[in-house]
């Protein structure tokens, strides 16, 4: 065997050994893929210290709104994803806007229908010309304070909810933004006048709106609303008025509570609760508007002589006899 052929044989052997070694490494490597040392050789993070796999549970928690840490002062920024906003958007831009608009139209139509069928409820024995004081000046003032504040709140609130579909296309973006800006300003500050009005109404009228012995009879006769000549007796407020009173107090209470939390965001509540406040505020605001539309109808067009009570504080004696017979002052 010469040196050249020995050299060739050794090289072949070397290559063969190398190949066996390589196959062995791949084989063993595949057996021990999970071992940290091997993981390192494959470009993953060493050990499990930082994790070398993506943990789906970790990302699920992040998507569900779990908070991390941030170095900036605003600690709310530590939440990466919040999904409450999307459900608020879906509810607000969906059913709340849709049913709210339908509800407003339906309430007005209902009033028109009632007027067409029942007509104006007149003072059956005519005006007597004798006036009786029904409300003190402070009561009249309280009513109008609350009423004007409510109307401004309702219009500016509706503008926030629907303005961009109704008013914006008509007057253009710039003018609409100016109006909406003032509207927001008005909504935010007139709110305090409204709160004052509601508190005063509670102080003045709560005692007259508690159930009394006339309620059962009034309800049994449907308040005389649907039939001419039927006038169940009632005290200062009849059962229908009491129901409106309580709906206004409860609804306004809702709007005041939710509205104040919107005015002072994050004082008491976190983001998710704020979103709930917005939903409740718009729903209860819209319900209140339905009630008030009916209230305005009954107090003006619907009932002859009723508006005088809130214009001057005085009503005609015959009006009082017809509608509130139990609170007509005894004649001497």
């Amino acid at each position, binding site marked *: 065997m010469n040196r050249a052929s020995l050299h060739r044989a050794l090289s072949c052997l070397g290559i063969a050994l190398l190949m066996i070694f390589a196959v062995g490494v791949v084989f063993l490597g595949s057996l021990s893929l999970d071992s940290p040392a091997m993981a390192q050789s494959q470009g993953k993070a060493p050990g499990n210290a930082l994790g070398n796999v993506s943990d789906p549970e970790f990302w699920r928690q992040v998507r569900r709104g779990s908070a991390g840490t941030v170095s900036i002062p605003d600690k709310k920024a530590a939440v990466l994803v919040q999904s409450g906003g999307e459900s608020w958007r879906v509810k607000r831009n969906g059913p709340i806007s849709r049913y709210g608009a339908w509800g407003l139209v339906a309430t007005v139509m209902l009033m028109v229908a009632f007027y067409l069928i029942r007509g104006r409820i007149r003072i059956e024995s005519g005006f007597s010309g004798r006036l009786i004081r029904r409300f003190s000046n402070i009561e009249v003032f309280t009513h109008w304070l609350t009423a004007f504040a409510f109307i401004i709140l309702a219009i500016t609130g509706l503008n926030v909810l629907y303005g961009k579909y109704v008013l*914006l296309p008509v007057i253009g973006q710039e003018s609409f933004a100016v109006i909406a800006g003032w509207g927001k300003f008005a909504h935010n500050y007139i709110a305090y006048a409204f709160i004052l009005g509601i508190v005063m109404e509670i102080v003045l009228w709560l005692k007259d709106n508690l159930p009394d012995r006339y309620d059962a009879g009034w309800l049994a006769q449907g308040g005389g609303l649907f039939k001419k000549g039927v006038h169940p007796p009632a005290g200062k407020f009849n059962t229908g008025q009491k129901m409106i009173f309580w709906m206004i107090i409860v609804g306004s209470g809702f709007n005041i509570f939710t509205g104040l939390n*919107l005015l002072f*965001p994050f004082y008491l509540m976190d983001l998710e609760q704020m979103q709930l406040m917005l939903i409740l505020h718009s729903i209860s605001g819209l319900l209140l508007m339905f009630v008030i539309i009916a209230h305005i109808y009954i107090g003006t067009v619907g009932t002859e002589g009723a508006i005088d009570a809130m214009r001057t504080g005085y009503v005609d004696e015959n009006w009082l006899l017809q509608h509130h017979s139990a609170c007509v002052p005894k004649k001497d």
Partner: protein
Amino acid sequence: MARMKFLCDAERCIECNGCVTACKNENAVPWGINRRRVVTINDGKPGERSISVACMHCSDAPCMAVCPVDCIYETEEGVVLHSKDLCIGCGYCFYACPFGAPQFPQAGNYGSRGKMDKCTFCNGGPEEDNSQAEFQKYGRNRLAEGKLPLCAEMCSTKALLAGDGSEVADIYRERVVARGFGSGAWGWGTAYERKS
């Protein structure tokens, strides 16, 4: 037409806050406002991850849908911008945004927050491109200069990517293949895969 997107690779972000600083400086962002922030999850624990987040410029953006004055709009490149002249500071965009992107100069007493401010993808606002007025209200308009957002350009580990969504996705996909695992493109499901 390119559809601009952000992507933060959580396997790369080292919480250096370079992007936050770059954004503040490039756009002269007012005191107290952070258009971009870095959030660290499991800080100091095994499996810690950091993510840089700002406005993601969502498809069918929730902020746009709830803005009562309709002052938020989407450009042809999918960038979500707004007009500070029209904004009434109601805060609705903040309630709707999944990523907490909209910011307000005042903390919010009496609901008077001032005009909303958020990441513009370095694309300014409705004013004339690169005008003084645009810079003062919204910061630099790098897109108009043919450049991408500075936060991503500055990122030392290239964790934060910004640009044409399909290119960004390609780069990320390559990384995931090379690493052998991926976290999914963080936030993309929420930002870009909305119905409608």
